[in-house]
């Protein structure tokens, strides 16, 4: 297991390098730069700014300079927020985005798992159809539509919850729901089909024949074995939560790094953009690693 972890950790390095390289190339190929405004800056101002941020160096040198600094923990200044370094901006927002993603994941699990289990145990009954309707709804409605509607209903009309921000626990509810509904739907569907498969297995029939209590059958035999495919989709689900957070953070004006990511693309804030992309790549890679590790917990046949 130790060797496995080390190997996976080392594999992260070339992944991040190529992500950085591709991002850098795409960034600089995209037309328009950080100093292009509707009211343009004078050529002299642009020259001074380019000199200040080393944008007048050849691209290859800029990339190497960036890597060198990054390895020493210096991710550069932000063009759009010159008073703060990229590291500070990310540090102040990352915690909030992680929280949002975590709550959304909890919501997705709390809603999706029981829904899927219920649907499977009550196969082909109204409970099944209702659960799947909820799942399809969550799947099809985009999270920004869900977000906007929930703000209008719960805040503007019913005055029950704030419209956004991240100040009190009440502000966490709507964004977590808007973000988590899609994964909840996916989890429900996968749980249902996986449970249906497991229910038909011989060992389940054996357990029931032995006289094991129904609840124990469900918990120990059916659910645990059904979870494997579900856990598999948690990897991509984390990626989804991470990317979905851009939109949700924007709509609920949550001060996380999702907003930074979108803004940095639109304003061509290269250092902030690079750091954000690298962070997300690392987060998804780590999530996938955790998913792989969890197989070992769920299925005794799998050993690393």
């Amino acid at each position, binding site marked *: 297991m130790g060797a496995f972890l080390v190997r996976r950790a080392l594999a992260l390095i070339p992944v991040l390098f190529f992500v950085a390289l591709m991002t850098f190339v795409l960034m600089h190929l995209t*037309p*328009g730069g950080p100093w*292009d*405004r*509707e*009211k*343009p*800056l*004078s050529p*002299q*101002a642009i020259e*001074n700014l380019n000199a200040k941020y080393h944008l007048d160096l050849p691209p290859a040198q800029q990339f190497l300079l960036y890597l060198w600094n990054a390895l020493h923990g210096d991710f550069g200044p932000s063009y*759009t*927020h*010159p*008073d*703060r370094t990229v590291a500070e901006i990310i*540090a*102040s*927002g990352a*915690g*909030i985005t992680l*929280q949002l993603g975590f709550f959304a994941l909890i*919501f997705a699990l709390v*809603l999706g798992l*029981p829904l899927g*289990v*219920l649907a499977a*145990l009550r196969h082909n009954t109204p409970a099944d159809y209702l659960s799947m309707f909820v799942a399809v709804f969550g799947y099809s409605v985009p999270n920004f539509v869900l977000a*906007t509607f929930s703000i*209008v209903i*719960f*805040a*503007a009309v019913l*005055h*029950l*919850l*704030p*419209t*956004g*921000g*991240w*100040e*009190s626990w*009440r*502000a966490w509810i*709507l964004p*977590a*729901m808007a973000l*988590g509904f899609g994964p909840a739907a996916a989890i429900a569907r996968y749980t249902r089909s996986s449970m249906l498969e497991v229910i038909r297995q011989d060992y389940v029939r054996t357990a029931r024949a032995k006289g094991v209590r*129904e609840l124990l059958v*469900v918990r120990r035999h059916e659910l645990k074995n059904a979870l494997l495919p579900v856990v598999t989709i948690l990897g991509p689900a984390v990626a989804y939560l991470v990317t979905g957070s851009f939109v949700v953070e*924007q*709509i609920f*004006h949550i*001060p*996380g790094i999702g907003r930074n990511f979108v803004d940095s693309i*639109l*304003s*061509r804030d290269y250092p902030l953009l690079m750091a954000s992309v690298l962070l997300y790549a690392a987060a998804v890679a780590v999530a996938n690693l955790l998913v792989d590790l969890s197989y070992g917990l769920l299925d005794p046949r799998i050993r690393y």
Partner: protein
Amino acid sequence: MKHSSLLTLGLLAALAVAGCGGTAAPPTTAPGSAVAGGPVASAKPAGSAAAISASASAKPSAETAGGNTLRYNIGDEPESIDPAQDQDTTQDFVIMQLNATLVYPDKDLNIKPGLAEKWDVSPDGLTYTFKLRSGLKWSDGTPFTAKDVEYSFKRLFDPATASPYTDIVKGIKGAEEFFTSKSKDAAELQKLRDGVGVKATDDTTVVITLKEKQAFFLSTLFNGATAPVNQANLEKNKDKSFDAPNYVGTGPFRLQTWQHKSKMELVPNPNYYGGAPKINLTLVMIHEPTATLAAYKNNEIDASGATNLSAADTNAIRNDPAYKDQVLQYTELGTYYLQYNVTKKPFDASPEGKKLRQAVGYAIDRKTLVERVLAGVGTVATSLIPPGMPGHLDNIGPTYDVNKAKQLMSEAGFPDGKGLPQNIQASYNNLGTWPQVMQYVQANLQAIGINIQLDPRESKTYFKEMRENASPLFRAGWNSDYPDPDDWYRVIFKSDSSQNYGKWKNEQFDKLVTQAATEQDQNKRLDLYRQAAEIMADDPPATIWYHAARFRLFKPAVKGIVTTGQDGGLPGKYFLKDVSLQR
């Protein structure tokens, strides 16, 4: 069966917890920040913990929420509130609450005393002597002297500062040489710095020397970029000088906290020369119009601030008895137009191209454009200078006359558009109402036989393209830097101006605006600009559409909002210090 009811219960419980957010305890009233202190979160929240402050959400529907704090939405986080980095309206808004400038506008944008209580201009118009008020202090209590003004201007022009927006005051002697210097030699840079024409001759006198006469110079001096900065603070705190709690300024408010990307809390500055304001100011950053409107209706904010509502929402509010009396609609010094690249056919510099450009001017139904596409938030324009500024002209430029447009088309040799290229490229940036405006214009042009192809772009891509290779037709606009026609005619349309994306060149126009820039007699100036406007109507570099207006919401408790044409979309910018709240 037993387990099914257990599961169903669990399911219901899950739904109840995660679903509708209604909870047992009713929301408590926010304690409303007292003038001294209030819910203070640290300026640099270390991860999640500090971000979850104790402030409760607003009590719905009661007007007691907010207390003595004006909760104003500025839309986005300002990039930096270092005056030397001031280049957009959000920054300027915040900077003007925290800083004072040498002169200050009144509600009609006339120049009144600011930090300086009086000034003299030499007969040759090159030397301005400002006398500062006595007893001026920084927000931290230290004395403010003329040396601070000198230091700040020199810092603004320092190439190492890399200020993006020195254009406004580069008429000052020695400024441009210093700003464009590529030298790395410390002695040489110091010499250039000393050569900048801003000198403190004693503790309360600043002498500014221009390199050429500028009739409009004073009106450039209330831009936030010219606000003095505190040298001691900069030397001690360097990069962190312009963040809470270090910020030191001379303005009506002090920066108490700044939760980045979330909100800023400003409190009155007792050392402000004009007397401390009566309110606290909380600036929130809600970008989405729907979310802003919801926050306003949920009593989380008192002012919709920077938000531009959609046409549908605007009309809905106008007809909503609960909110229609809370609307503030006012005009700003902005004008929007369809600009031509006269180096590309068919709207080029030839006589036929000129007639075509004139024809387009008569083909646009501006009244319907404003009423329908903009939901009435705008005013019809036929010439460049908006109302509220000297130089505004009412009766120059084309009106809506389809027959005249068609006639001009025939005179140009393209009766009903026959012979014109099809799908003429018309580009714009895909933001806000521009798509609808461009579609409307396309329909107008279709009616007289001109067939244009709309080509939307992402904003930065668009600005770069406009600058380097503008399409035959492109959407453009201008918002005033300073309230003088020079900022418009010369800065945008003089043939050698860097803004002249359409490469339009008219020698008589160039002569007129150059002369008007230095002419001291205001009447003569206005006449020169009138002639310039007539040239623009005859040989249009652009077809003008409409002047800017804004539609904003303020709670009835907010008293004393005074708008000017240079508020930049954030109404009341220059006079928030005089606002009071009567909840």
